């Protein structure tokens, strides 16, 4: 079976700083793949490189058989791929509805169905359609960021730390949404600091350490891995 996303020997960075040093990673269609690692390991850079926002210096990113390395973000992001960026990054002075509409900005035609689908998943976004995005609570903003990404009906959803800065109860809710989105047929690559929750949720996982893949395997087996337990799960 052909992988939906296959990354080979990917190098990327910022000027002289190398953030990614030869990443090999694959995501199969229908999976949730978790990407864990400490601060500065290169998790966000990897997502940004897939989107073309941080241009790869070497290696290849194959999505559905197409080469993404060297292409512009606006060419990549309309190929059925969407990102929920780190720190939510909603448009604070635009309304909730406008935020959602921006998520489908490169789509032609009617977005009414997509809007209804997102509203069905997050009813709060329908109730607050006319409210200014910046006035939502943190959890609602995260839902908005996820809803915005879902507006383009992606096959692959990249999520960067959706639990960042949220209360434990809200985090649980967000993770339930991630599972639900996956059940509905979207493949998910999930970057998380909350390693335990991420490994519980995911099918497979990769552990990133200083720009390289240190460990990879079934999420369940990584939960038992002594190295992973010591470094990321607190013993």
């Amino acid at each position, binding site marked *: 079976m052909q992988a939906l996303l296959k990354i080979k020997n990917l190098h990327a960075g910022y000027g002289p700083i190398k953030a990614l040093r030869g990443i090999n990673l694959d995501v199969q269609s229908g999976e949730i793949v978790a990407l864990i690692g400490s601060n500065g390991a290169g998790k966000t850079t990897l997502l940004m490189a897939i989107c073309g926002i941080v241009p790869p210096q070497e290696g290849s990113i194959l999505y559905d058989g197409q080469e993404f390395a060297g292409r512009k973000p606006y060419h990549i992001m309309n190929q059925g791929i969407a990102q929920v960026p780190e720190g939510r990054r909603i448009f604070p002075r635009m309304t909730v509805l406008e935020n959602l509409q921006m998520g489908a900005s*490169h789509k032609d035609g009617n977005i009414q169905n997509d809007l209804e689908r997102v509203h069905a998943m997050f009813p709060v976004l329908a109730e607050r359609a006319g409210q200014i995005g910046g006035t939502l609570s943190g959890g609602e903003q995260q839902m908005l960021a996820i809803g915005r990404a879902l507006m383009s009906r992606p096959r692959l959803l990249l999520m960067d730390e959706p639990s960042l800065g949220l209360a434990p109860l809200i985090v649980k809710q967000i993770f339930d949404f991630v599972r639900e989105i996956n059940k509905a047929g979207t493949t998910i690559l999930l970057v998380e600091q909350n390693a335990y929750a991420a490994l519980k949720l995911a099918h497979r996982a990769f552990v990133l350490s200083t720009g390289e893949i240190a460990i990879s395997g079934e999420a369940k087996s990584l939960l038992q891995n002594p190295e992973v337990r010591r470094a990321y799960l607190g013993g």
Partner: protein
Amino acid sequence: MNIPAALKDSAVASLIALALFVPMIGLVLKGQSLNIQLLRALFVVAAVFAGRMLISMLLQSGLLGRLVEVIRKVLVYLSPVVGLVERRSFRFIGLLLVVLVAVPFLPGSSNYLIQILSLTLVYVILATGLNIVVGLAGLLDLGFVAFFATGAYGYAMLAQYAGLSFWAAIPLTAGIAAAMGCLLGLPVLRMHGDYLAIVTLGFGEIIRILLVNMIDITGGPNGISVPRPTLFGLGFTRRLEEGQLGFHEFFGLPYSASHRYIFIYLLILAFTVAAIWIFKRLREMPIGRAWEALREDEIACKALGINHTTTKLSAFTLGATFGGVGGVFFAAMEGFINPSSFTFVESAIILSIVVLGGMGSIVGVILAAMGITLLPELFREFENYRMLVFGLAMVFIMIWRPGGLLKVRRKTFARGGHGG
């Protein structure tokens, strides 16, 4: 009342005044010799002492606090009016339009009034253009005057060297200004905030210095004269060109210079309405949304697959087009232009109209343009203090209404919303 503290404050103030005013006005240069006239300085110092004493007393008695409170209350009472204008903004614009169309035909109207109003409208066009760049797309442009100058000189030079008429020059000049906007946009695609501001500032100055120094082409500091616009070939000048029919001849009226003023005024008014309409449409179109999204968060825009290159360039290009058209009208209105009309201060004034009026707001920008061009005319006698009042008004508006005179009200869509 704490007299010793007040005395102490006043003494400190007097000392500072002493240090300042003795050299400044106590020493009088007379021919080669220096006259020491300490008494003059001491008078000023005494006045400072008394003034500082008075302020201390006022502060201690709470009178000053009460005064601020009164101003605040007045503003609170005014805010429903402002709110009404915000909610009914297009009715307000309609009313304003009726008044503006009627003005030239009312008794008491003068060529002077019509000229001032024309200038105000030119500023509305310019500010609407800058509002695209700064208000919607959030790109701080301190060199907007470059496009204004491009428009004005574009028309003047097309008329002089290519013999083009006003009507042929408008679209051509708008195109040249748009190209200039795109040209400026290309190198600053990756720049934000302060860096962008500096580059645009430099661009504005480059254009002005070019105009000053290319004497053979632009006439340099001596300026260049601009032909007057015509109405379907009918001229408005007293001495008509060869074979040209005059407006007054055609309609069998006695010649009057006010015909020309009113004609140009109504022309500018029509284009202002068009500019505002275009701006309103752009704001609601997908490209307008993309500009606003870009202003809010560039990374998020890239992550959503918005083409930030074309989005930014289109903001610069369209903004510059408005600037160019504003310049053509300015030149047509003045009949003569020189580089001193296109200094950095112009950029600053246009930017303050946008900031004072409220970024992205239409009515706010119209009101601010009127305030900034009409008020100084009303207070011509106090010309020297204009910048002072201007600065104060800016400070107070930023304190009390940081979003500008009129905040942009976002349209609240019905549940479910619209497609696209």
